[in-house]
């Protein structure tokens, strides 16, 4: 992590917030634009899960993390609270590493 990234990200993230709330104000965007923006979290967050679970650097791998995340997915599917999902995922991963 570098301070350059932190500052750029802070400025960029705040710029988006100000653009919507103050600069564009009450105007509305074309529906197609709002639809695509609304789908960004689903696409990127899923990609982050894949990266953090199945990759090390540029290699695809299957290790203890895969089982931990599989349990986290089941917990999320059963509507477990956030903290339960995280603790279960971490605990299973740690246990598998002990084996």
């Amino acid at each position: 992590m570098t301070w350059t990234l932190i500052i750029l990200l802070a400025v960029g993230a705040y710029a988006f917030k100000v653009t919507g709330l103050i600069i564009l104000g009450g105007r509305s965007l074309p529906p197609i634009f709002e639809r695509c923006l609304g789908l960004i979290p689903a696409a990127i967050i899923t990609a982050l899960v894949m990266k953090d679970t199945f990759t090390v650097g540029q290699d695809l791998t299957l290790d203890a993390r895969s089982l931990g995340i599989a349990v986290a997915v089941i917990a999320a599917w059963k509507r477990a609270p956030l903290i339960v999902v995280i603790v279960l995922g971490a605990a299973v991963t740690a246990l598998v590493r002990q084996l």
Partner: protein
Amino acid sequence: MTPWWRDPTLRPAIVACLTLSAAVGVFGVSFGVGSVAAGSTVLQTCALSLLVFTGASQFSAVSVIGAGGSIGSALGGALLLAARNGVYGLAMSRRLDGSLGRKFLAAQLTIDETTAMAVAQPTRRAQQVAFWVTGVALYACWNLGTLIGALAGSAIDPKTFGLDVAFPAGFVAMVWPLFSDQRARLAALIGGAVCLLTVPFTPIGVPILLSVLGVLVGLQRPVSAPNSEVIQ
């Protein structure tokens, strides 16, 4: 007029806002732990929560840098995730009153949770109360949680406790409710597949940027009959 904190009609909303903020504080702890586990200092971790204050972007940036990605790819992915706060700003601009200075403060608090709590309220007054109560409480809880997590994370070896999985497990919990929408499921499927398929061939961090291709699902108009394309 009854002050907002004594208005019985606002009480359920205020309790809901505070409960949500406390839950997000727990998530802040996992951000703090994961961030130091990925190589950030305690000070950098706290600066991210204080200044950036939009969870998914913070997690994304730290996760890409921790894996060895460049500043550019970490920034790109994180800013793509931050773009939706602009849309929330549009929604909130119709609901918030006050001076320009107050709006610049409100802008920093315009994120998933504050917008969701505000738009769920029936009256304009309740919407504003929900926005500010959630915003202030959540900012405090998120940053306190981050600090606790960063300090705890520096004191232990995160891998022993499986804490390197805190991020993806948190992401799973974050993304799961979105999957009630069919388009979001398709966008996620494409995003996840593009990421895994491009990991071996592109620099670290770039697959996260490419996964945004999943949003192209939104180019198509919503269809009432799910199989209409096939029928045509």
